């Protein structure tokens, strides 16, 4: 079994290095094909490992080599395949395989074709390290690795100013959060003496609650950055500057869920500190509704989906915070399938519309893009959580968990968000695929994506539809490791009312969205309608003015402060002293080089002068040593 672990881990690395060989050469289709095959082999290995774990096999734990061993510190390159990591491995490798194959078509005309596959596979490798490591240090390495690949891929089209800006924003925000995570890791090592999951979890039980709370808080700060939770959320929407397959893989299905994975992995820690868990859940619920509200009005197709991702991450954190770790992980899995599908569909639409992102300029695309239409509709239905698609099972379980734990505020917020989710998803599909063909005004001739791209997407479509059926199997698998429990609403009547009520609410939201956006009167908004001038619309469209506030109150003052430090401290103190020392030495050399006249007579004079100088020093020191007691007495008399 170990060899499958190594294949799953290292096939993406080989793929990345192989593609990297051709980065400086023009597009070569075979790099994409070989990269896809290697990632597919990782997927096959992960599936074999999954069957092993599902069949009741022992978790596989290997120590590849020692990484650090100094004093008491011992950190190996150790990898573990247990119920949690195998779930993540399946999600990562499956979505990566789909995205790799899809990208062969999507990046068809791009000059950086080979480079793209190198970065994408490097991302998969980092993500595999993140989920498979058996200690926090390895997790952190993967964590930073995915951050780096995310930066490379957001800024993939680096000649675009906005893309490089977005890449830097994502990178810097993540570094801020990673500092918190690093502090958390230090605290763990300091208090437990180990970073191995097993050892530190065992030691957590003996620590006092205050220490545990700090560890939990700092680790969660790291998770907040990676999973773009408020207030570090602004980078995710801007990250949509990257190519769409990247958005599907990194900014929807895998990397952004790493924060959820961290909380789920540290479940033994968080179950000891339920008050931190409650904070996480509350923040999650807040982000769910906060992001969903921004998605309601946005006019950028990819940003709407990004906000929806943010909102769903909020759901996951709400579940994880309430102790329903298995539900969070299950929603993570289901969400990865339908959200990646939604993004890839959006990529097809973008290609068809020549990179146009405003859904108001589309309309009626279902005639030309039948398959994309079907896939995006199913993905939206799954996202909205309609029976019997994947989203229904995972999202409804989160709602049930919140209800059963008696957190009714969180429950109602999440329920209301479910309605918003349904509304914005179908606002998007209605605007893109239904109604008048508004794109004709702009002279665009849309076309369906390549066949093999659609075929590559089909596994996601199938999973988005049937993933809910795995709920019981999944529960059985993670039951032991996550201390999972089924949430039972005491009375069956309440449960039925809740489920049916949610469904009706969601269906009404969908119908309202269709009624509002599927008609002939929709035109491209020009900023004159009453709604566009309302306060709420402006507030939501401008993302609650948070990016402006960050710009105005953090970025600009920081820049001004830096300028002051640059001109006054750096130039006048640091640089000046360094330059001064160099200048003194240089000038001394310059002036004294006249001594080296080569004239023997002059040199002899200098020699005598030096001799006299040393002699007098010797006399002075000799006297000073001889009369040291008297000199000290005089100095102390002077009060020195």
């Amino acid at each position, binding site marked *: 079994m170990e060899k499958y672990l190594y294949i799953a881990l290292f096939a993406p690395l080989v793929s990345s290095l192989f593609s990297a060989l051709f980065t400086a050469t023009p597009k070569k289709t075979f790099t994409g094909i070989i990269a896809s095959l290697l990632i597919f082999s990782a997927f096959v290995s992960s599936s074999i490992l999954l069957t092993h774990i599902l069949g009741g096999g022992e978790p596989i734990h290997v120590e590849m080599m020692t990484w650090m061993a100094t004093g008491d510190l011992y950190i190996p390159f150790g990898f573990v395949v247990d119920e949690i990591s195998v779930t993540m491995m399946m999600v990562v490798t499956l979505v990566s395989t789909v995205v790799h194959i899809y990208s062969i078509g999507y990046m068809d005309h791009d000059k950086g074709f080979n480079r793209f596959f190198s970065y994408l596979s490097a991302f998969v490798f980092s993500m595999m390290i993140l989920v498979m490591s058996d200690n926090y240090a390895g997790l952190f390495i993967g964590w930073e690795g995915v951050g780096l690949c995310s930066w490379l891929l957001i800024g993939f089209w680096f000649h675009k100013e906005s893309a490089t800006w977005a890449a830097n924003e994502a990178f810097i925000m993540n570094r801020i959060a990673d500092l918190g995570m690093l502090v958390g890791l230090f605290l763990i090592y300091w208090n437990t003496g180990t970073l191995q999951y097993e050892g530190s979890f065992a030691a957590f039980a003996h620590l006092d609650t205050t220490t545990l709370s700090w560890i939990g808080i700092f680790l969660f700060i790291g998770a907040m950055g990676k999973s773009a939770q408020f207030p570090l959320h602004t980078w995710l929407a801007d990250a949509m500057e990257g190519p769409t397959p990247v958005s599907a893989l990194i900014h929807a299905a895998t990397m952004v869920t790493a924060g959820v994975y961290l909380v789920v992995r540290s479940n033994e820690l968080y179950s000891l500190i339920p008050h931190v868990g409650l904070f996480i859940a509350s923040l999650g619920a807040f982000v769910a509704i906060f992001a969903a509200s921004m998605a309601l009005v946005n006019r950028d197709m990819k940003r709407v989906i990004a906000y929806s991702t943010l909102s769903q991450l909020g759901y996951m954190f709400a579940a994880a915070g309430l102790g329903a770790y298995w539900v969070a992980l299950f929603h993570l899995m289901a969400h990865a399938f339908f959200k990646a599908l939604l993004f890839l569909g959006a990529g097809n639409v973008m290609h068809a519309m020549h990179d146009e992102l405003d859904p108001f300029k589309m309309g009626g695309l279902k005639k030309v893009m039948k398959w994309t239409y079907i896939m995006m509709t199913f993905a939206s239905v799954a996202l909205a959580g309609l029976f019997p698609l994947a989203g229904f099972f995972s999202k409804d379980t989160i709602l049930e968990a919140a209800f059963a734990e008696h957190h009714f505020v969180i429950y109602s917020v999440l329920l209301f968000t479910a309605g918003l989710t349904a509304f914005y998803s179908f606002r998007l599909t209605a605007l893109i695929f239904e109604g008048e063909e508004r794109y004709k005004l702009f002279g665009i001739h849309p076309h369906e994506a390549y066949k093999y791209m659609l075929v590559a997407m089909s596994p996601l479509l199938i999973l988005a539809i049937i993933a809910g059926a795995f709920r019981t199997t999944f529960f059985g698998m993670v039951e032991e490791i996550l201390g999972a429990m089924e949430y039972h609403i005491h009375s069956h009547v309440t449960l039925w009312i809740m489920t049916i009520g949610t469904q009706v609410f969601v269906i009404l939201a969908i119908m309202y969205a269709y009624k509002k956006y599927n008609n002939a009167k929709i035109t491209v908004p020009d900023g004159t309608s009453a709604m566009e001038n309302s306060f709420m619309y402006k507030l939501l469209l401008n993302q609650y003015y948070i990016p402006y506030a960050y710009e105005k109150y953090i970025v600009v003052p920081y820049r001004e402060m830096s300028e002051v430090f640059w001109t006054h401290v750096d130039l006048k103190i640091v640089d000046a002293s360094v330059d001064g020392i160099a200048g003194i030495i240089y000038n001394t050399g310059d002036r004294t*080089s006249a001594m*080296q*006249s*080569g*004239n*023997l*007579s002059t040199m*002899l*004079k200098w020699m*005598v002068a030096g001799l006299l100088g040393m002699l007098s020093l010797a006399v002075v020191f000799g006297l000073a040593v001889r009369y040291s007691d008297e000199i000290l007495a005089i100095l102390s008399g002077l009060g020195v």
Partner: protein
Amino acid sequence: MMEIGLNHYLILSTILFAIGLVGVMRRKNLLLLFFATEILLNSVNIAFAAISHYYGDLTGQMFAFFVIAIAASEVAVGLGLLIVWYKRHGNIDLDSLASMKG
């Protein structure tokens, strides 16, 4: 009549050393520079012999012999070089020896 003691020898040695030092600094003729060096060495020899006698220890006088031997060999080598230099350049002026200029 005053007896001549160690101090007189040391004063003589110091005066000779000072004369030699001034000679080393002031002389421009290479030959005279050698003379000045000899004066320096011999002033030290006087001090060695006098102190040796004062303490009744022969080590100092032995050192003086060493110094004389080394001075002789130094002069032998130095004069050889000096002659070669004079044949080449026609003078032994110190200011013309500036090929070591940095």
